[in-house]
């Protein structure tokens, strides 16, 4: 928050980023997200043009486009938004849709500690699909996706406190 844009370039080592992109390109994985020095870096192949296609079929295609998305990692305690965004608002710089918290509470990515998370970065979600649980004094609230698309960012760690209006996910909508 309040970070000067130039500072981001100093934080991100370009050689490191190139290495990361090459590593993803050569691998079978679709995306990778790491936190480094307070900066979160996510590198992902663009979603396949034909959803549901055989994942291996893309290997022979020429130069699958890549993109890298760099955002400052959220501060440990984000101040309460004085003017919270609506529950789902397109972000200014991209077509990603923010999913914000409708309450003060605790964020959980899974229904139980040993259960798999509801969604991961790269998960395709449909409208009405559960994204997370927000707990407010033992009231367990399931937050549902309002748009169909692909989860591009999960902005907070599980079991962390959230404020009203805080961005939890960024979803790339599909037409």
């Amino acid at each position, binding site marked *: 928050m309040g970070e000067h844009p130039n500072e981001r370039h100093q934080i991100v080592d370009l050689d490191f980023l190139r290495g990361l992109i090459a590593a993803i390109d050569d691998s079978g994985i679709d995306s990778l997200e790491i936190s480094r020095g307070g900066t979160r870096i996510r590198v992902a192949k663009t979603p396949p043009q034909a959803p549901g296609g055989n994942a291996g079929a893309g290997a022979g295609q020429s130069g699958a486009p890549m993109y890298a998305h760099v955002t400052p990692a959220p501060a440990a305690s984000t101040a309460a938004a004085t003017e919270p965004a609506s529950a789902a608002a397109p972000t200014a710089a991209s077509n990603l849709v923010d999913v914000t918290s*409708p*309450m003060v509470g605790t964020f959980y990515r899974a229904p139980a500690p040993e259960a798999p998370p509801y969604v991961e970065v790269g998960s395709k979600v449909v409208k009405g699909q559960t994204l997370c649980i927000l707990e407010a*004094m033992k009231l367990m*609230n399931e937050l549902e996706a309002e748009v169909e698309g692909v989860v591009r960012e999960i902005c907070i760690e599980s079991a962390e406190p959230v404020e*009203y209006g805080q961005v939890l996910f960024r979803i790339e909508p599909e037409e």
Partner: protein
Amino acid sequence: MVTSGSPPGESGQDALLLDRWEGCTSAELRSIWGVPAVYLFAAVGSTNDIARRLGEQGAATGTLVLAEEQRAGRGRGGKSWSSPRGLGLWLSLIHRPPTGAWIGQLPLRIAIGTAAALDHWCEPKPVGVKWPNDLILDGKKVGGILCEGTWEKGELRHMVIGIGLNLLQGRDDFPPQIRERATSLRAATGQPISRFDVATELLDRLQPVLRAQSSEALPADLAGRDVLRGREVQIRGAEDARTIATGVAAGVAPDGALVLTTREGAVEVRSGTVHIVGGIG
């Protein structure tokens, strides 16, 4: 009488419809309890799951789901809730309160209302509430509340209030791992218990609780029920059980948060699991 079929809200073999509960049909219970609908099941996975699906299908506020047995009864955070056939009250209600920060108080308000309903069998001793959603008798758990909300577009679409009350179990009816920490209304009071009477008293007591508005103060009788007050407690994370805070419980804040006196001063707790040092839970 049990009939198989395709019960509302749950597919598969798990849910079996029930014609009568405690001798009453669902239509009779609906009339007696003054609720819009009653769904009776011999056995379900979880009454909350069925109520949730009914809520998604537009079932009216106040619709009740009641089962003789839950095969996958749930507590908070995916913990199981032992719900053996015929020995307790396992029910869920659909509720649609106005959206607002205050709805976080509802688990506590419902726990207090449920405790007040059980007082009838326990007088003069008040049934205890372990913040925010457990019911305590003789230092053991006699019931619990699991409230689950579904949100869309920043609004609460519906809430399911699950209530599990241990009524008729003997000690050996509880799984060994909770035998020392759980009790039933009959075991604790030594009285004969009618499940119908408990359900009727409970639903009567919950009516005003569910009509409560945000501006209403928490019930004054909470202080007398608060089993944590004055006890040393640990607040542990729900996911990794690490201790978040330790202190002496000092009551409940107006918004329903647990107040803890710690070495660093008073803190208000709104999430995590409460463990009494050297005690239950």
